[in-house]
C-alpha cells in the first residue's frame, strides 16, 4: 500500500503494535492487538483502539476524531503486513464495537479501496454469509486476507 501512514512500533512477538495519531485533538496513542480466535481455518482477531494517557490499555470507547481516519486505517493495514509476515497469511477478523464504528471502518475501506484491493481480499458478513466487499453495502463484520 503506497499510502501515507504513521510510523509504528511492534513488540518482539509482532502481535502488538502501537503508533501515534497526530491531528487537531493532539497526539493520540493507538494500539493494535492480533489474537488467535479460530484454528480451522486459522483466523486472528484484530482489536484496535486508543491507548488513553495513563492507562496503557487499548480501549475503543473513546471517539478521538483526530481528522486522520484514512491515515490511521492505512497504518493498521500495514500492521497486517508485519503480522502476517511472521504468523502466515491467514484471515484477519475485524468489526467495530458498535454498528456505527463498524460503519466507520467500512467508510474507511471504501475510501481507500483502490489501494486496499491491490493487496488484500476483503470479505464482509451480511445476510448470513461472507461476501466479497462492495462499497455500497453495510456489513456486520469483515475478514481480511493478503492476496
Amino acid at each position: 500500500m503506497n499510502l501515507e501512514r504513521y510510523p509504528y512500533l511492534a513488540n518482539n512477538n509482532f502481535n502488538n503494535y502501537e503508533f501515534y495519531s497526530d491531528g487537531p485533538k493532539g497526539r493520540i496513542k493507538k494500539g493494535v492487538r492480533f489474537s488467535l480466535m479460530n484454528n480451522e481455518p486459522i483466523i486472528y482477531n484484530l482489536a484496535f483502539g486508543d491507548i488513553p494517557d495513563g492507562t496503557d490499555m487499548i480501549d475503543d470507547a473513546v471517539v478521538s476524531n483526530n481528522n486522520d481516519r484514512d491515515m490511521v486505517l492505512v497504518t493498521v493495514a500495514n500492521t497486517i503486513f508485519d503480522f502476517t509476515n511472521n504468523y502466515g497469511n491467514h484471515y484477519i477478523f475485524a468489526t467495530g464495537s458498535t454498528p456505527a464504528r463498524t460503519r466507520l471502518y467500512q467508510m474507511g475501506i471504501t475510501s481507500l479501496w483502490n489501494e486496499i484491493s491491490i493487496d488484500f481480499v476483503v470479505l464482509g458478513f451480511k445476510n448470513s454469509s461472507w461476501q466479497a466487499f462492495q462499497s455500497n453495502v453495510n456489513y456486520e463484520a469483515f475478514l481480511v486476507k493478503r492476496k
Partner: protein
Amino acid sequence: MPAVKKATVNEKGYYGNAIVSDKVKDHGNDPFVVKKLEEAKAFLRKNGLNGLPDLKK
C-alpha cells in the same frame, strides 16, 4: 511524530515496516481486547463461515 509518506518493501519482499521495541506492551489481557476476542469468537460460532472461499488454505 512525522508522517511516513510511503511504505517500502522490506527484505522479504513484503510491505510492513514495524520498528521492534520492548516498550510495546502485550495488550492481550486488556479488558477491551479480551472482550473483543470473546465477541469475535461468539460471532463466528453463531454465524459460521458460509461463503468463505479457500477454507483450507
